[in-house]
């Protein structure tokens, strides 16, 4: 399928842009040759769309749909899905159950559109029975998901796509690349000028308020590694004057209290950075303490 | 005095050999407890070295646990 993307020269690098996973995506290639930049952007676009098609929960032709509509019957999954399931299991253990890919179902009652649609305790309680990684049976390659439960790779998908894309592109070029899928990004190494890529970390308090200016709180140079951000800048509920973040605790079904508005983490891979940012949000007030323990570079905006 | 030590050593070795009849050999996969740090003969080498140094400078005896280490004037 022909991918729709644009390619633009920025002097000493090329920027390929497209939309995937409902986010603006870009690939910055530190090279002069337009054909190479075009090929790399095509590859990136194809990989992003492949992952979106495979794991999007808005489609009815993919493995996720099969799983979520299996009505309690075992489904045989492919190796990539199996690896993601293994990884999700790992994250569940590492987070003491706070990171749970079965918790997406809570979206049925929590609508984070900034309005005051607030669920009742009974509504939440009813859903809690359908949440919990240990409730499903995962025996590679067989996954058995109890009826009415749902899996959602939304918490990992975009970051995973960034890492996967980077791996693919690096097989085709030695040039330095910056892959940015909706703010989750990865740089593959120093540029020809010996420097890194200049990256901005958003400040939610200034987002969209300053006309043509760049809405960034911090700019810094990323040579090699990834940054991912977890935040609730636009996704929250106001209820009786309290701002509820879209980060939900799968153990009680309620938004995490005291979480920062946004957390950005720098790590070796985008997946790592994304998981750490999400886990930090899930720590609520202890987000900074948690991240400090991980000895990673991070920004918390409250 | 050397003879006396050798005599004592042989008595202890004989005891060791005798007791060897009463112990069960431990299989390689049964060393979970023996592998713990606290079960080592010297789990805290710094404590042991500091003690050795203190008593070396306060008493007339030395040696036994191993070789190595350094000398000192120790007045």
């Amino acid at each position, binding site marked *: 399928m022909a991918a729709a993307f644009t390619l633009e020269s920025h002097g000493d690098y090329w920027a390929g842009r497209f939309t995937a996973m409902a986010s603006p995506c870009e690939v910055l290639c530190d090279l002069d040759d337009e054909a190479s930049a075009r090929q790399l952007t095509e590859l990136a676009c194809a990989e992003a769309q492949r992952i979106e098609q495979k794991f999007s929960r808005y489609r009815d032709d993919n493995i996720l749909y099969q799983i979520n509509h299996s009505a309690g019957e075992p489904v045989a999954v492919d190796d990539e899905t199996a690896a993601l399931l293994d990884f999700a299991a790992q994250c569940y253990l590492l987070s003491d159950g706070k990171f749970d890919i079965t918790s997406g179902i809570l979206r049925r009652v929590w609508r984070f559109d900034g309005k005051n649609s607030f669920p009742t305790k009974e509504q939440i309680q009813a859903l809690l029975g359908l949440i919990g990684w240990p409730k499903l049976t995962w025996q590679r390659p067989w996954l058995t998901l109890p009826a009415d439960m749902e899996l959602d790779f939304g918490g990992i998908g975009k970051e995973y796509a960034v890492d996967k894309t980077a791996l693919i592109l690096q097989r085709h070029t030695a040039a330095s690349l910056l892959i940015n899928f909706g703010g989750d990004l990865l740089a593959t190494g120093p540029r020809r000028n010996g420097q890194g890529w200049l990256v901005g970390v958003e400040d939610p308090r200034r987002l969209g308020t300053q006309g043509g200016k760049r809405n960034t709180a911090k700019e810094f140079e990323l040579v090699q590694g990834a940054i991912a951000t977890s935040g609730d800048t636009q996704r929250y509920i106001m209820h009786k004057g309290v701002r509820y973040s879209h980060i939900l605790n799968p153990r009680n079904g309620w938004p995490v209290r005291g979480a920062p508005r946004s957390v950005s983490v720098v790590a070796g891979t985008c997946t790592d950075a994304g998981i750490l940012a999400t886990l930090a949000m899930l720590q609520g007030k202890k987000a900074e303490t948690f991240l400090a323990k991980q000895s990673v570079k991070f920004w918390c905006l409250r | 005095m050397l003879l006396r030590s050798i005599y004592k050593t042989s008595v202890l070795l004989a005891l060791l050999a005798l007791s060897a009849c009463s112990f069960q050999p431990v299989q390689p996969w049964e060393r979970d407890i023996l592998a713990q740090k606290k079960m080592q003969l010297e789990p805290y080498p710094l404590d042991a070295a500091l003690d050795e140094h203190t008593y070396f400078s306060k008493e*007339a005896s030395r040696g036994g646990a191993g070789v190595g280490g350094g000398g000192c004037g120790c007045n």
Partner: protein
Amino acid sequence: MQLKTKPKPIRKTLAMATATLLGHVTHIGTANAESNPWEIDTAVMSYQENGRVSVLEPVIRMREDKGDDKFFTLKLVVDTLSGASPNGAIPTNSPQTFSGPSGSSSYPIAANTVPLDPNFHDTRYAINAEWEQPAGDARHSIYGLSFSTETDYQSLGASATYNFDFNNKNTTLTTGASFSGDSVQPLGGKPVAFAVVPASTGGGGGGGEDEGGGGGETSFHVNKRVVDLLLGVTQVMGRKDLIQLNFNYGKESGYLNDPYKLLSVVDNTGALITAVAPDSPYIYEKRPDSRNRTALYSRWSHQFGSDVLRLSYRYYSDSWGIRSNTLDMHYRLELGERFFLEPHLRSYKQTAADFYHTSLLNTEVATLDYASADYRLADMTTKTVGLKFGWLVGKHSEAGIRVETITQQAQPSRVIGIQSQQDLLPTVKATMVQLNYRFLF
């Protein structure tokens, strides 16, 4: 054994899980994100004797896991000593005056007080490096080098240990050897054995080698050699029992005197005499220039539930006539999964060296080959009572505090006449406090 620590560091585990997810084919050395090759062990010990010396001793030990059972260990010690130490002379019912080791300063000692030389200030620096490597499937060897230096003493040593495992690793044979060459530079020159200590008013302590002269010799450099050989067996006695038996032979030769130790010369009433030389009743000590020693050492570790008992016993004897028995016990009492208490008891008893004399009769000076009044060569007991509190701070770090009291009681070799009015060898009480911190890095 579920460790409930939060928030806990998960970054490395996560990185490994991600590497698996992304199918990173990484080189094994780098893939093992969890490896913490450095073990850093630090301690600072403070030792304080009542009215005598105090020691402050920080230590750092760094051990690197070089992979494939190879280890490199580096230990650095700084040992700062200050305070007063007995000079060997006996307390008397009248005041005494002594010259310091350099001869230029003198110090008075009140009546009925044990003479302590107040001039002990020294800092010792020691460095110790070890390399451990396998030598075939069931053997490994450890090589060590050590160096230490203080104002008047340097030591350079090397050691090698070989371990052979057999009987399914239930038995280990250990053989070891070490050698050290030490160099002593007594302050004020090497005193001539049995020479009369210059009177404090006499000024410089230097002088010639000639016996009739002063106490000092201008040669500032004397040597001492120490060789040790070790043979040991370690035996696994069961899942919870480990014992070791070592035999150690050592030979020291060269300058074995303590250049700062004196002997009091008395008449048969027990009073200091000045007949040897005017106004100085003190002579320098003299020890044999070699010493052969043997030690038989055994230890046992046993686990009770999760507690661990460690017992050790040593029998020691040497050619100076010293015999000693040492019994040492540690009991590690687990308090939950994060804390432990470890009481420590140690009991030591030695017999006096053949040439130990609390004081000398003037008639003996000419007839004795060797003599020393160093209380450490006396008939003596040491009792240690200690307690350690340990805290497993995290998965890779551990802290500890240890407090011990050490009581030493020596017996005079004989008490002559009026010496019975004195406490010739008062009990020495010391307190030791040690802080430990160990972490993986």
